[in-house]
């Protein structure tokens, strides 16, 4: 037991989880903004906008996240010299956030689009009938209802994002939890199972409240029809 507890003094485990939470936070904001724009493209009356939206979703959603983050760090930064500022570590962190956001935006887009499908067609017709154009109708009438209908799928995307934030390890973010776990396993072969359980349970503790909150929110905010 003492043997196990020593890893908490040797390694900054809460700090490692905190890095994942920060990765998730910034990537979630990026994915929500980009995903909303993509959803607007996909429901737009202009055919070429719809094509752009669906091409993005089909390309990015079907590309492994590891490949995207590796590309961001090794190709965008490593070979092409594209940086997002800050020191070495901050740049890797930001590039990983970019990769996470770009990837999860495709899922956010589809979640919002499923929310749009919960809004009856008559809502859009009524909005158009009082003279609202596409963007005002989307902003004032369709999206507010769509978001409320998409809370559960958006929550699922957030849960996936929290767990996927560990892929930032391939983006050289050495302080996040899977990187920390990797070096712990290397040096502490005597307690690999407790180490695994520490990180597994840590993520379960972070993720379960997200599921509970989204279920509660989706009931509380449901649009009465």
């Amino acid at each position, binding site marked *: 037991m003492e043997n196990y507890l020593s890893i908490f003094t040797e390694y900054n485990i809460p700090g490692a989880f905190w890095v994942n939470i920060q990765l998730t936070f910034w990537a979630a904001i990026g994915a929500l903004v980009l995903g909303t724009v993509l959803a607007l493209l996909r429901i737009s*009356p202009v055919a070429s906008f719809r094509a752009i939206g669906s091409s993005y979703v089909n390309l990015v959603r079907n590309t492994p996240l590891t490949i995207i983050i590796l590309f961001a760090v090794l190709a965008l930064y490593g070979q092409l010299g594209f940086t997002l500022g800050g020191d070495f570590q901050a740049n890797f962190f930001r590039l990983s956030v970019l990769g996470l956001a770009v990837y999860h935006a495709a899922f956010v887009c589809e979640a919002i689009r499923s929310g749009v499908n919960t809004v*009856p067609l*008559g*809502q859009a*017709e*009524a*909005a*158009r*009938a*009082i*003279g*609202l*154009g596409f963007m*005002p109708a989307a902003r*004032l*009438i369709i999206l*507010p*209802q769509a978001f*409320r209908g998409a809370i559960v799928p958006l929550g699922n995307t957030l849960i996936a994002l929290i767990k996927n934030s560990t892929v930032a390890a391939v983006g050289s973010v050495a302080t996040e939890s899977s990187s920390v776990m990797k070096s712990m396993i290397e040096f502490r072969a005597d307690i690999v199972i407790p180490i695994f359980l520490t990180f597994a349970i840590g993520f379960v503790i972070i993720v379960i409240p997200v599921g509970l909150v989204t279920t509660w929110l989706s009931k509380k905010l449901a*649009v*009465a*029809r």
Partner: protein
Amino acid sequence: MWRVGRVTSSNVYCMNSDHQAQSATSDAIVQLTGVNKHYGSLHVLNNINLSVTKGEVVVILGPSGSGKSTLCRAINRLETIDEGTIKIDGQTLPSEGKALAKLRADVGMVFQSFNLFAHKSILENVTLGPIRVKGMKKVAAKDLAMQLLDRVGVANQADKLPAQLSGGQQQRVAIARALAMKPKVMLFDEPTSALDPEMINEVLDTMVGLAKEGMTMLVVTHEMGFARKAADRVIFMADGQIVEQATPEEFFTNPQSDRAKDFLGKLITNH
């Protein structure tokens, strides 16, 4: 009574649609010329010529699938058309964009399923158009909305959500929402068809009130009582065509076409 007198003198009830189109051009609020629409092989609007003059109340009757709802929805382009022109107050209906939105703001629409904005309060449903489309100040829009909600008898529900109101109340709010845009013409697409019987009259009374105040109205309905009471002209549609048009008095007592006789015959046996 004044209505019938005015109607007879304007003499627009000729079966000859060309003649009618000419005689009504000058003050036509809605004018459809040679409008055609197909759903695949179904010719849902077949060479429709129709004009509605200022202050006129036109009721469209006809069996299900006769194209009357499609016609109503085509007038503010919720349905596209394949051929022909539709003019609102002399302006040809644009196919898309800001110009279309602007013209739609002048055409009030009341739907069968109410379509109140489900996430907005009753008051917000009515103020949204004036504020967002017409750029009205919030205070002025609220005054206008409360006045209109009072007129349709639901002012005491202003802070509730649509789902908390009865169907009849929701439809009256929908009428207030359309009126708030100060429309040149109001389209009603089967406004009472989704209502429980005891709520139909409260909506029809509101509509009769509007008709008496001189609102230009085009009403698709199955309510023959409303047609008799408020219509200046009845249009009978079948198979995508305007088969017959006449004053309600003439239409109900002396229908000309077999289709109309058949339609009215079925109504009488069912009541």
